Structure formats: structure tokens, C-alpha cells
């Protein structure tokens, strides 16, 4: 008897369906608090998915625990609501076993960066072809309002009545340090931009990490309002675009330039000359690291794609080793049982 061939080949439908947003809506009542930023992320995802041209049955959403992790129940694909922090592990196993599937990981700042920090790190360093969407609301919502690893230093919450004594993590910096090949940031309220980031993440081959600033209107309302509200967005956020100078302002009148390794705002920069030009495809992460250090109010907050580079994916490399081994001769059970020294008793 020989080793099995992968039986799933026949399961994947070849015909590309024409789907609409409605095809990705389930019969489940959405149970986030009214006004939650998660609604917008769900809506942009459901709008974006038909554009991928991938059949519903070949898409899987895997989440951990937390408000964001309810997400799979509301998307009409395969879905797995797992345990706290572990979604990247299940997704890695699934994608490695079945590289032909499109796999999303939905996580939050607590799920992904606190209890599941290790898994997130390793999924990114391995470059597993997953689309990881981290909803960052800088608070624990499901457990009703404790500080999270991204909460600002000194923040007063239920578990830090005198203010936190912990310094926050920057999720983008973690992703860059772990070697993620696609790293982006968007905001729940900037629906068009968010949809574009989700689309580009899904299209990227390799691990994609998207941080979405998401408002928790119950426990941390307005966390991003100072720069993400529609009226101030142009002045207080800068949209990163590969190959273009960093410009912001109502009329794109301001710019960013580098002084050594330090960014500086150039008000009313008339010419692009001397302005920092974004390079998302750079292998070196120095520039991306400088950008991620820019924060409101000293700087406009950068959103968009920080990094987008090509590298072989983990699932692909594993499959390749298996394929190469099989090409040299598919394993035979009879033979492997008889490997090594044998003797015959008459």
C-alpha cells in the first residue's frame, strides 16, 4: 500500500462564481453593541470578498476569543471560533495541510498581542499565507473594560483605577520585527480605505497583517477620534502610497521629510522635492520602522501599506518538500515497515 494522495483535490470547485455581498451574510443575528466599529469591518469584508473571485467554500475565517472573534459567525464561509489567542495556530495547521484554501485570522489587541502574542509572532515569521486582521480598540471589551497591551500608558480602566503602569505595544512594529511580508493599517470609519487594505491583504501571497483602529464605543469611546474622524482625517492622518511622497492636509499641502533618521513635518511644502517617498517594497524595514514611530499629535498618523514584499510562503515550502519527496517515489508501507535490518524465522 502506498501513501495517500491528497483527497481534497476534487473538493475545490474550479468554476469561479459571481458572488455579491449578500452571499457572505449569514442567518445569525449580529450581536456586537450598537455603534461598535466591528460592524464597519464586517461590512467592508463582506463587500470585499466577492471581488476576490474565490468560491465561498474555499474561504475560512478563524478567530480566537474576544468581541472581534465573533466575526466568523457572521460571514457565510467556513468559520472556526476557537480559543483565546490560538487562532494563528489553527490557521497555520489548516493552511499547511490545505494550501489551496484562503484563510483569514480575525483577532484583537488582547487576543493577538497578549495571550496569543507568541503565535502571532511565529505565524508572521514563518510567512504562512494567512490574512491576519487585528482589531485594535486598545481595551478589553468582552470582559468589560480592562486595559490591553495597546492601551496608552497611564490609562484609567476598571483594572487600572490609578492608571496603568505599563507601556503599550505597537502592533505594526511587532509585525515588522517578526518579518511579516505585508503590513498595513487602516481605520474602521475610513470604509473605502479599509476595504482596499482588506483586498490587498487577501491578494498578497504570504502572511498579511492588517491593524484596524476600531472604536469600542462602550469601554474606550473615541480612542482614535482625535485623528480618525472624518472632519480631521485629512489633516491628522497620512496615507502611505508606494512610490509617492508623504503628503497630508485638506489640500495635501503638508509633507514629511527625513532629517537623518528623524521624520519632520514640512508645512505647506510647495514642491515634492526633499519629501520622504514611500517604498513599501523595500526588503529593509528601517523606513517602515521610522514611519510607524510617527504618532498623533506630533505627526499625522500613517495608514496604508507599510510593507509589501514577496517571499516564499511556509505552506508552499512544506508542500514543495512533500512533492519533491513523492516525486522520487511514493512511500510504500510494506517497504517502510521492512526498513532497517530484518530476519526471517521459518
Amino acid at each position: 500500500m502506498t501513501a495517500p494522495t491528497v483527497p481534497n483535490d476534487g473538493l475545490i470547485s474550479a468554476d469561479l462564481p459571481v458572488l455579491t455581498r449578500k452571499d457572505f451574510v449569514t442567518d445569525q443575528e449580529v450581536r456586537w453593541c450598537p455603534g461598535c466599529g466591528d460592524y464597519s469591518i464586517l461590512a467592508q469584508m463582506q463587500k470585499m470578498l466577492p471581488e476576490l473571485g474565490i468560491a465561498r467554500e474555499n474561504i475560512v475565517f478563524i478567530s480566537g476569543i474576544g468581541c472581534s472573534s465573533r466575526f466568523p459567525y457572521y460571514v457565510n464561509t467556513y468559520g472556526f471560533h476557537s480559543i483565546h489567542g490560538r487562532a494563528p495556530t489553527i490557521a497555520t495547521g489548516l493552511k499547511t495541510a490545505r494550501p489551496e484554501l484562503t484563510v483569514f485570522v480575525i483577532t484583537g489587541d488582547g487576543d493577538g498581542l497578549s495571550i496569543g502574542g507568541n503565535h502571532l509572532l511565529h505565524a508572521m515569521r514563518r510567512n504562512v499565507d494567512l490574512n491576519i486582521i487585528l482589531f485594535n480598540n486598545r481595551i478589553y471589551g468582552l470582559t468589560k473594560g480592562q486595559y490591553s497591551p495597546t492601551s496608552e500608558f497611564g490609562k484609567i480602566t476598571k483594572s487600572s483605577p490609578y492608571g496603568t503602569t505599563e507601556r503599550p505595544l505597537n502592533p505594526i512594529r511587532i509585525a515588522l520585527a517578526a518579518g511579516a511580508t505585508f503590513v498595513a493599517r487602516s481605520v474602521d470609519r475610513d470604509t473605502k480605505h479599509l476595504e482596499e487594505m482588506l483586498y490587498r491583504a487577501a491578494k498578497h501571497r504570504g502572511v498579511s497583517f492588517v491593524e484596524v483602529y476600531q472604536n469600542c464605543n462602550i469601554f474606550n469611546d473615541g480612542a482614535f477620534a482625535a485623528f480618525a474622524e472624518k472632519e480631521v482625517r485629512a489633516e491628522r492622518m497620512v496615507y502611505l502610497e508606494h512610490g509617492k511622497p508623504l503628503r497630508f492636509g485638506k489640500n495635501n499641502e503638508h509633507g514629511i521629510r527625513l532629517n537623518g533618521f528623524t521624520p519632520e513635518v514640512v508645512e505647506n511644502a510647495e514642491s515634492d522635492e526633499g519629501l520622504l517617498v514611500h517604498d513599501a517594497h523595500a526588503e529593509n524595514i528601517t523606513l517602515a520602522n521610522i514611519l510607524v514611530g510617527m504618532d498623533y499629535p506630533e505627526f499625522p498618523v500613517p495608514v496604508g501599506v507599510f510593507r509589501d514584499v514577496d517571499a516564499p510562503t511556509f505552506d508552499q515550502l512544506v508542500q514543495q518538500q512533500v512533492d519533491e519527496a513523492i516525486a522520487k517515489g511514493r512511500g510504500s508501507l510494506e517497504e517502510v515497515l521492512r526498513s532497517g535490518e530484518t530476519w526471517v524465522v521459518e
Partner: protein
Amino acid sequence: MTTETQLKSEHSVEELERVTIRFAGDSGDGMQLTGTQFTRTAAVFGNDLATLPDFPAEIRAPAGSLPGVSGFQISFASTEIYTPGDRPDVLVAMNPAALKTNLGDLKPGGLLIVDKDEFEPTNLKKAAYDTNPLEDGSLAGYQVVPISITRQNELALEGLPLSAKDKFRCRNFYALGLILWLYGRTLDTTIKWATEQFKRRPDILEANLRALRAGYNFGETTELFRVQYRVPPAKVPPGTYRHISGNEATALGFVAASVLSGLPLFYGSYPITPASDILHELSKLKNFGIKTFQAEDEIAAIGAAIGAAYGGHLGLTGTSGPGLALKSEALNLAVMTELPIVVIDVQRAGPSTGMPTKTEQADLLQAMFGRNGDSYVAIVAPCTPSDCFIMAIEAFRIALKHMVPVVFLSDGYLGNGSEPWRIPDISELPRIEWKYADPQEGKFNPYLRDPKTLARPWAVPGQKGLEHRIGGLEKSGETGDISYDPRNHHEMTLARKAKVDRIVDDIPPLEVIGPEEGDLLVLGWGGTYGSITSACENARKRGLSVASAHLRYLNPFPANLGDVLKRYRKVLIPELNTGQLALLIRGRFLVDAIGFNKISGQPFKIAEIEGKIDEVLGLRDEYVLEFTRSAGVSGG
């Protein structure tokens, strides 16, 4: 060559039924290799045998020190045997430290072969000997044969272009040659192995073969040994045999499960003693379509296995006790999502880090109950190294048919121990039944159970029309939607339990060795099979009414277990823990089972179980375990 002339020598030949030898030396002395080579020779000769290696916990303890001693015990016989032997008949000690740590196990009057060149002041001091035991009379109770192994090996290798250190490293082959002579064995198997092993290093090959032959010839010409021993071949069933360790058999069993089911195997694991060998074995076998994943931690390893099982492949993870503790939350996710994963636990000694290189069977209750909520998994436990092969297949047969996680409880003794194995015909192996969910119109109900097994359908991504959501939250029966309904949770909990209970219809009954009814049943599970079976055989030879039975299915128990227990006046349960199976048996069957518990990191000796049997039958006073100070292997 001397190999053909051994019986023409002038030594008399004495026939023995069974011999147990322990090779002991510094971890740099190559004792594992010496033992393995002797084992191969005995196996090819046709003896039944069992072996147990004993490694120091430190990778490289200081040379000559007590913690640096490495041992390998082999028992070989002309009859069927089940264990590597209680106490060695022969101890080969390559230095003072090896003597000190192993002497306590040697049988009184046993043969003690030592390399006397190594008994010099520095080594004696490292082994904490104040006086030289070869000279102070402390070894009077043994047949001591001091041999100048180091020096003679040097002489044999004189003129070879090797460093003194490389030459010193051939001493183990000198000792091997000598022992092969002593038991009338040929050098053929070792020569064949060495020729293949050192084909790129002819200088090393030459040195090893010279050392081997020198040792052999020394036995032939010296007058230190008056007799040569002969252990005739055992009568074993015909077939093709190989040598196999428990961990190898485990890996091959899971390969077989993949081939038999036609489903690719995914193995997620984090390195841990003594389970890592399974990862090493499986990672070589990519031409079987096997994907191995060295995870960032134990949790990721099981998470990935769950992901693979969700994707319709064989999801397997493996670890030892501390790792099982880390996996427990994720194992519960597999319980809740009713996915067919298998978790290997190669048990080791103690709580926390405990004694990683020592054996114990103390994770039974962890496997059974070590999770939050009312959580049921199936549990299987192999009873010999080669039984790991069959039970691995069984684990996935049960997991796939019943859509349930299965824990496979091996242990360090089984995993590292080895025995000859009659290679089975593929046609003899169990069938593995499974199916993905049937395609259907309309809403798919992922928790609509099979009326017979209560298994839920296995719908895998890629199957059109079966898109569904599962997770760790309680589900509504049939639809799988999240539910907090009181009656639903009650019923779902009972359904998950009943699903595991119903596996009972799908496993073989418990077999009894010995009388169908009588004075005493000795009930065991896992790696204690060899010592229990041997002890009970010995008791019956002494005319006692003692039967033994060994549980390989621990949840659910075989259907006839309750009946079997009732047929004996007393039930004795020897375990390498404080009484975990006994607790389950007493709780389930209200049987006043007597525990016999040893928690020393070492397997049971046959004599220990016999001693306890005698106590329970009123033939002696209380039997008290004795612990030798040996750091070496204790057979059993």
C-alpha cells in the same frame, strides 16, 4: 576468522535459557551502540529479547562522573520473554563511575567485567571511591573479571593513523567483541553494520574491526573465562522480523493509519523528552505525504493539529506529560468541536519537569479528567513497544469513526524500549472507516449526529454548500448555532459523553491470561505488561491461582471488564503511579481493588510484582519495595 571456530575452542559450553547483560560506561564510551549491536546479533540469531537504554539526563556530563554514566540492558532468551530482565546476570563496567551506579542491580554472584585500566586515582575520585574496589575486597560477592581493556585496545590499534582519543573510542568494540565471544555469537552482524556505517571512513572502520576482533580473540585465548555460554534460539512464530522501539512503532503506526485511511497525516509537535523521536521519524517520511510542523509551543502544536483535522486530514500531535497539561485547553476545543485528533503522550516521571528521562504512568487521570467542564475523550494505551504500532492505528480508527479526540498514552519505558517485531501483513491491519459529510441542499446541520455512533458529520472546507461555523461555545444540537439554552447544554454534555461511551461496541473485549476465575486477578495497563505477565506466569508455575489482564483501552473500558473483575476473589492493580487506574476501577465497579504502586521513575521488576502477589495471597508478610541506589536501568 574466529567467528566460525568458536565452539572448537577449549572452553566448555554451558546452555542457558535466559541471560541479562548490562553495558555501562561513560556517556562518551558508546554503550548505547555496544548494546544495540549485541541486540542485533541476538535478534538475527533468533533469540527473543527485550532491551532498555538508560541515558543520563545531561547531554554531556563531565567524563568519568557519576551523572555521566550511560547504560544499556538487554535480556535475551530461548523462550518468550516480556521484559529486559530484573537484575543483570552480567555487568560490563567501563569505568569506576559505571561500576558504582550499576553494581547494586547486579545479581549476587553475577559476572562483573571491568576495564581495570580505568580504575586509576582520578577516575576513582570522580566516582567517589576512597579505595579501589578491585583491590579492597568489596566485590567479593561477584565473579570479577578485571581486564585491561584500554591498554589491550591500544595495542590492537597500534600503528593506525588515528589520534589517541579516536583509538580510545574503539574500546566499546573491544568489549563488544569479548561479550559476543562469551555468548558464542559471530561477529558477522556487527562487521556488516560497521562496514556500512563507516564506508566513508575506512580508517575508523579498520580500527573498530581490529578492536572488535581483539576483544573476541582475547576471550578465546585467555583463561579468565572457563566457560562459554549458549542461549539457543527461541521458538517464535514464523515471519519476517525486525527490531523496533516504541517510539519508532508509534511513528510507523501513524504512517500506517494514514495509508490505511487514505488521508494525509499532519503532525504538530514541540520538542520534548521522551517524545521527540516520533517527530524525528515522521519528519523523514515526507514521501508518504506527511507534513510535520515543529511548533513554537505545545499549544500551537495541538492547535495546528486541530486545524489540519478541521481541513479533513489526520491531525496528530505528540508530547509528554507537561506538554499535555499545556494542550488541555485546546484538547477541550477538539472535544467541543468534535474533531478527530489524536494526542500522543509519552509519559515521563513526576509533576512539573519531574525526571524527563525516567518513566512513569501518572498521566492517566490527566488524560481522563484534566480539562475544564465535563469533558470526555477516548484513551488508548499500548502495552509493549511493538504494540504502539497497532494502538496508533486504533487511535485514528476510533477518532475518525466516532469524531472524537483520542489520547494515546505511551511512556518512556515503552518509547525507548525495544523488542523484535514480526512485521505484520498489511492485510492483517484494522480497517479505518471515515467519510466527509454528504453534499446536501438547504441549510447544513453540522451537529446532526449519526444515530448509532452519535458522531457528527465531518464537513471540510472546500465542500460546497456545507459552509458552517463551529467553535468552543456551546452549540445547539443539530444546527450548531451558539446556544445558552439550559436543556440544550444538559443534553449536549450527555451526548458528548454517550458518544465516547458508545465506542465500547467498537473495541475488543479484555483478554485474560491464566485461569478464567480464581484467587487473584492482576490488572494493569500500559508499559507494565511485561513484568505483570511474567510475574503471573511465574506464580502459576508455583501452582497459584493467578490470572492477569491488561487494559489497552482505558476510555471507554472494554465491555467485559466488570464481569472479569467479578470472577476473582481479589484484584491487584500494579501501577507506576499512586493508584490512578485503581481509583477508576474502584469508582466504576465498586471493586475493592488493591493497589501496588511504585513511583521511582523505574519500571516494575518481575520479582516485585511476584512479591506483592504472594503478600496479597497471604503467602508472606507485607512486601516492601527496595530501591537500589543505581542510576542505571532496572528491568521489569
